[in-house]
């Protein structure tokens, strides 16, 4: 049977696993997956890793590989999107208005959680908070996590009064409450691009197409992603 | 003062037996591997017997039945190890002071200077044990234990690696320690003359058992230990009393029964009962008193027994006490000696040695 290898950003783990299993069952193509930080995956592909499909958590690592001619440009597409939400530990919710007039920095004490600005969620957070005029006041109070899951854990454990995570993460946690969803114009769109890696096996093409199928879309939305039409 | 009765098994070996030390110094004597070191370890508290008890000056150090096992550091029993066991990370000075510095001045029985001087180790103070010779190590180990001022001193071949000169220096010191500080000792050595210099009291071990114990003479006369005296060349031991000192002619006169003996000058107080010893080979026999001869001691006696032993004859002569004389077959022929004859036993003054106060 054919076999393909999919490198996917860690935050897509659950969805991609399900889709891969489904694809394997339907098409008889064995799908191997490797989940890690997009940065690690990109570097591995750059070094000639035997990946057929790359699914990134943001645009910049896809651009990075694109710039190095490591992906098949024509195959690149955005699979899905996500939203940014402001969360608080369960039971510690407070009213928030995502408007410049609202004083978010004054509305809670201590630190807030997101990720370092070098990972996408960190960057989106910065953009959104800047847009709302809170960044300068909140930047020193940032407790960054290496990934969204860790950021979520800090809020779940009440270490941070608020946090900014993806809607997909907030959705599955029963220990946090969503205070508000950031308007999509307050930050660059959260997009998950996918592409064939240079030299990918022919069978990979089918999988990339399957990712755009309605079956896949159902799975994405089940996990809280916004499906891109 | 030390009383014990115990059984200690280690591997195939079992140490066993009662032992009572009521003498200032007791020599512990026995062939290699008979259990001497193990016994010392048990007394010091480093090895725990399976059964029995150990009592020191009435204090129970160990009692299997009552579950008492006083730890070593509460026993104040000093042990000079056969293989020195100096602390490799400490200088000689700190090795010496290890037990000493924790003592209150009142408890200290020696000063560092005294010990350095006696053992001639002042020049080694800053050295590490690794940079010492075998004998130097042994001396430091002895000094370390002495400075810890124990109430019982266990010495495991402390002078084995030392030259004659050093031994002659350290032994008198140990005797002073015995007499002046009244520090009791259990002294393991294969050199019987070292032991006898310190004490006539002996415990003899073999294969884990204490075969006998008591005054040297009594112990070695016991049938099962007889070989010992012979192998040591110390067959004659007498108890005598000091009657006269003549320093000008270098002579000390002692007596037993109604006999007088002339010995080399000693410092023993008059009237002191003391043990003296003589090899059987140092006894000559004559038919008549001999005049014009430097042999001072000529004691008449009766031949009890003439036995051929290998190539020589051992004569037992009764001079108030039985004395063994080892003489050649030729001499017996020439003199036509026979049992029952009266003979004079000739002993050179300097052939006797003092074993110490009785």
């Amino acid at each position, binding site marked *: 049977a054919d076999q393909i290898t999919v490198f996917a950003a860690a935050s897509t783990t659950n969805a991609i696993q399900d889709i891969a299993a489904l694809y394997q069952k339907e098409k008889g193509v064995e799908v191997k997956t490797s989940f890690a930080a997009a940065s690690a995956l990109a570097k591995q592909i750059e070094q000639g890793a035997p990946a057929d499909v790359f699914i990134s958590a943001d645009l910049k690592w896809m651009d990075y590989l694109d710039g190095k001619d490591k992906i098949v440009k024509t195959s690149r597409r955005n699979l899905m999107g996500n939203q940014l939400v402001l969360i608080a530990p369960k039971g510690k919710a407070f009213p928030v208005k995502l408007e410049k007039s609202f004083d978010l920095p004054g509305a809670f004490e201590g630190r807030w959680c997101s990720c370092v600005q*070098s990972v996408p969620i960190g960057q989106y957070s910065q953009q959104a908070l800047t847009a709302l005029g809170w960044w300068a006041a909140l930047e020193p109070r940032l407790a960054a996590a290496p990934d969204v899951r860790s950021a979520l854990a800090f809020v779940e454990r009440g270490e941070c009064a608020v946090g900014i995570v993806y809607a997909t993460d907030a959705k599955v946690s029963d220990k946090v409450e969503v205070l508000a969803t950031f308007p999509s114009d307050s930050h660059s769109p959260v997009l998950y691009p996918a592409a064939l890696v240079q030299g990918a096996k022919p069978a990979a093409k089918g999988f990339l197409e399957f990712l755009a199928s309605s079956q896949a879309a159902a799975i994405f939305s089940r996990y809280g992603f916004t499906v891109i039409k | 003062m030390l009383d014990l009765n115990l059984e200690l098994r280690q591997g195939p070996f079992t140490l066993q037996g009662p032992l009572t030390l009521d003498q200032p110094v007791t020599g512990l004597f026995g062939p290699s591997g008979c259990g001497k070191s193990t016994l010392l370890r048990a007394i010091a508290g480093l090895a725990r017997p399976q059964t029995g008890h150990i009592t020191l000056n009435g204090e129970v150090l160990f009692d299997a039945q009552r579950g008492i096992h006083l730890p070593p550091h509460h026993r104040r029993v000093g042990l000079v190890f056969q293989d020195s066991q100096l602390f490799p*990370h400490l200088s000689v000075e700190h090795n010496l002071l290890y037990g000493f510095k924790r003592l209150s001045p009142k408890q200290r029985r020696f000063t560092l200077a005294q010990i350095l001087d006696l053992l001639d180790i002042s020049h080694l103070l800053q050295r590490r044990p690794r940079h010492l010779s075998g004998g130097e190590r042994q001396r430091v180990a002895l000094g370390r234990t002495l400075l810890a001022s124990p109430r019982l001193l266990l010495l495991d071949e402390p002078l084995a690696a030392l030259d004659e000169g050093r031994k002659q220096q350290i032994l008198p010191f140990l005797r002073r320690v015995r007499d002046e500080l009244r520090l009791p000792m259990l002294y393991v050595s294969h050199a019987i003359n070292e032991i006898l210099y310190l004490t006539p009291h002996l415990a003899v071990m073999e294969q884990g058992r204490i075969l006998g114990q008591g005054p040297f003479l009594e112990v070695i006369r016991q049938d099962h230990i007889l070989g010992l005296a012979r192998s040591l060349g110390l067959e004659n031991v007498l108890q005598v009393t000091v009657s006269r000192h003549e320093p000008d002619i270098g002579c000390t006169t002692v007596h037993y029964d109604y006999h007088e003996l002339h010995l080399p000058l000693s410092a023993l107080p008059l009237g002191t009962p003391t043990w003296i010893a003589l090899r059987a080979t140092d006894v000559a026999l004559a038919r008549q008193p001999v005049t014009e001869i430097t042999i001072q001691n000529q004691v008449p006696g009766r031949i009890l027994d003439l036995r051929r032993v290998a190539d020589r004859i051992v004569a037992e002569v009764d001079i108030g006490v039985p004395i063994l004389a080892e003489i050649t077959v030729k001499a017996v022929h020439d003199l036509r000696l026979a049992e029952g004859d009266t003979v004079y036993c000739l002993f050179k003054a300097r052939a006797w040695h003092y074993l110490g106060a009785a």
Partner: protein
Amino acid sequence: MWSSLQLTPEELSALGLSLKVGLWCTALVAGPGILLGWLLARVQFTGKAIVDGLIHLPLVLPPVVPGYLLLLLLGKQGPLGHWLYDMWGITLVFTWQGAVVASAVMALPLMVRAVRLAVSLVEPRLEDAARTLGAGPLRVWLTITLPLAAPGILTGLVLAFARSLGEFGATVTFVGNVAGETRTLPLAIYTYTQIPGADGPALRLVIISILLALAALWLSELGSRRVERLLGK
């Protein structure tokens, strides 16, 4: 990228923090490490296997797991963290003190193992000799066992310091990545590796780490030579 050999303020802060955390971690781990190492080498007690296992856990699990467990235990809502805060006003999460705790937990098994090894090689007869000289267990331990195990203690401390310099997973999970507070060199390096094309700054930090480690190793060599001389080698 080498435009300046001068350290940027961020680099300086990460370096200083790493050094601080490393030294505190080493100090924190020393006592328990020595005690546990000796205990495992010399004392037979029930539950020894469990203590042994517990100590090794941080080594056998991926670092984020001990980090997460620390968060559960020492976080604001954690049983111990709660108590620490109420009783002493101590907060560990997001503070450099927390980073110290995280790397200490990760370094402990290394320290314990080294001490245990060295203690097991100490000649018990020397301890016997000390006891007959009147030294009680504590004095024997302090003056004989520990000094003779010094090479192992030193090795343990070096390993602990080194482990702390490289510790990332447990730290970031437990105390996050807060600039100036918990962003040690590994966390700063991680931050740069997440940015495409930021290899230069990352490499600078890596080199700073390496230099720091070399300096520490060099110091430890001096120490180990001293120890060897002390032990009369």
